[in-house]
């Protein structure tokens, strides 16, 4: 009987055709082009086997370093966003005056464009006349002033902090939605059992929040591996090439007209995302608790 109420399978066709045409086909073509010498200067495209991939790992341009930078960004940027966002969400989920105002304030940077954020923070973090160093000077703490985006030691922490400033509100909002879906009965039961705050957090809140954590980790993972905007606007891969990531390198290759090499980098990114992402998502979805 239920079968009769289901829509026929053919209804899926328009969406499937569009998906194949606009997503699967370009992706497969992209992988194919990574095995060719496709470039802007010549109308002919030749199959070159693994030449482009060989270039990626043997060129004096440190492509493997860019891959490591991408992985570093993915891990650290997620940690510095997810952990504080979780505590912020817990804090702003409690009964307090003006909590919606606080929520809005924390969420606000998420709606700003990366370009705006980049311009603002390049100015704020300037060593001589940036707002941050000026502040340290004004409060007689000149030893805290640094060359944030120009100093090899501080450039990555600076990027992580700016990225966290922009992204924390978004992650917090997902956690808030997750927190509000936890039935209060669990907390009542825990209270009756005499559980303290940390026990409730460990035994009730976190297990019930796994779907929200999964969403944040998956979003964070794909965002981190595909990162481009924040790096491009803050450092453009500098100082030197210290903060180059896969997508800034892809952008540079495409801009240079060496499409084959650019698509090889994209293919590499796809493989890295699959290797890291699929097992992680499987692991996390297995841990989800049904309410």
């Amino acid at each position, binding site marked *: 009987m239920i079968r009769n109420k289901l829509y026929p399978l053919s209804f899926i066709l328009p969406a499937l055709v569009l998906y194949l045409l606009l997503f699967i086909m370009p992706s497969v073509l992209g992988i194919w082009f990574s095995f060719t010498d496709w470039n802007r200067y010549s109308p002919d495209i030749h199959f070159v086997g693994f030449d482009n991939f060989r270039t990626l790992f043997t060129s004096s341009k440190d492509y493997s370093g860019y891959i490591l930078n991408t992985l570093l960004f993915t891990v650290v940027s997620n940690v510095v966003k997810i952990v504080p966002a979780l505590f912020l969400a817990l804090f702003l989920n409690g009964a307090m005056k003006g909590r919606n105002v606080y929520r809005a304030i924390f969420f606000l940077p998420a709606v700003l464009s990366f370009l705006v954020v980049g311009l603002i923070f390049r100015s704020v973090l300037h060593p001589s006349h940036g707002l941050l160093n000026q502040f340290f000077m004004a409060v007689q703490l000149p030893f805290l002033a640094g*060359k944030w985006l120009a100093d090899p030691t501080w450039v990555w922490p600076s990027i992580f902090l700016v990225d966290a400033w922009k992204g924390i509100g978004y992650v917090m909002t997902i956690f808030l939605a997750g927190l509000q879906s936890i039935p209060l009965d669990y907390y009542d039961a825990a209270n009756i059992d005499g559980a303290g705050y940390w026990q409730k957090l460990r035994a009730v809140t976190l297990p019930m929040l796994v779907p929200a954590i999964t969403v944040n980790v998956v979003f964070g993972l794909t965002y981190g591996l595909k990162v481009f905007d924040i790096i491009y606007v803050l450092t*453009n891969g500098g100082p030197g090439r210290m903060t180059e990531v896969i997508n800034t390198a892809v952008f540079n290759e495409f*801009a240079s007209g060496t499409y084959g090499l650019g698509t090889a980098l994209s293919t590499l990114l796809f493989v890295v995302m699959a290797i890291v992402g699929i097992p992680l998502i499987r692991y996390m979805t297995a841990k989800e608790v049904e309410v």
Partner: protein
Amino acid sequence: MNLKRLAVLAIVAIAVILPGFAADKAKVTLTEMVSQGWTTEADEALAAQFTKETGIGIEWQVTPADQHHDLLKTKLNAGEAPDIFWIQSNKWAVKTEVDAEKNCIDFTNESWVKTMPPAKIESVSYKGKVYGQGYYIKGVSFPVLYNKSLFAQYNIAVPHSYADFKKACEALKQAKIVPIYEAVPAGWHHVLWIMQIGGRYAELQSGVVEKLNTNKIKMIDVKPFVTAVKQLQEVAKLGYFGSDYMANSIDDQDMVMATRKAGMTLAQSGEINKIKTDYPDCKDDFGVFVIPLVDNQTSQSDPNGPARFGYVKSKYQSEIRQYFAFLARKENLQYKLDNTSGWTAIDVADSVGIEQHYIPAEKELMATLPQSKTGVIWQAATSYTNDQWMDIGKDLSAMFIGKMTPEQVVQAIDERRAKIAKANGDPAWK
């Protein structure tokens, strides 16, 4: 009755449609994409005057200097370039940067072409066809601009060798003045140090340009060039660029020179006028000398410079031609020179009859340089060099922070030259 109705309808239709056509004509707006710093208020004023005369609007798309090159290439590759775009042109860039045969409007038969001098025409042409329009500064390209008053105060002599240059820097450093203002984040400016002295490399190693362009030798084989990169590294290491050169903004260049925060910087000679105009409180005198790396004392000319190109896929090709013709008028070229505060002379054909405004500092420099010692800047002399300007900038930046050696920087230039040459099907690289 029907005829009457028809007549009324026709009148109404004409009344509606004709102004519509007129409005459409007036609504044509050309988008013009240019890198930050390549245009001035004079260019905007000329564009506004063009709009006033013709009703054709000009919408500027100004991109950050360190992103212009990549953004334009990406737009061209995607087939979505603006109607007009600028590049740092040279005879190779016309092919490698914008692939003019495929992307640019052919202006060969336009009467304004002859307003450009022959070397400039060559720098915007490919296979005998003219694709661009460029009018840039005439004179020694990017000398070291220095504060004469500061030099006099600290008894510093104008350097004529690298050793003298270091002495001058050290004296300023001891006086707690940043010896040289440099702004690495701009991406392009610090590259000038090693590129604007191509004539010196050719002087020290004869035949080097021809050998490089036919791939008989690599850049790494050009010893004076490698030495210049090493000396640039040394200048940075010794603290002569100050402590903030990896974060400085190029927009602050005039301010720091006017306020004695720095003693020297690389700039066009005409920047002296700009400093004097923008900072009337500055009573200091300024002068220029040639970049003294590898003891350079040659005068360097630059047939290149920023140039405009028209996009061949633009819907408004006739309007673009109209705009270029307007800009090439004698009165408009004179206006551009007279109203661009950093300029003292404009590189146009003598037949145009422009009144140039060389300043004393330039005349003084030209008097000290032997006329026989003139050369062409490195990126104009050698192929596939200008195309990788921003990449070289990144590598030099990596060298400054100790992530690359000078030799690695030069080898990376060779690697990119080979990549671009091969992609272009250059027979010398096969």
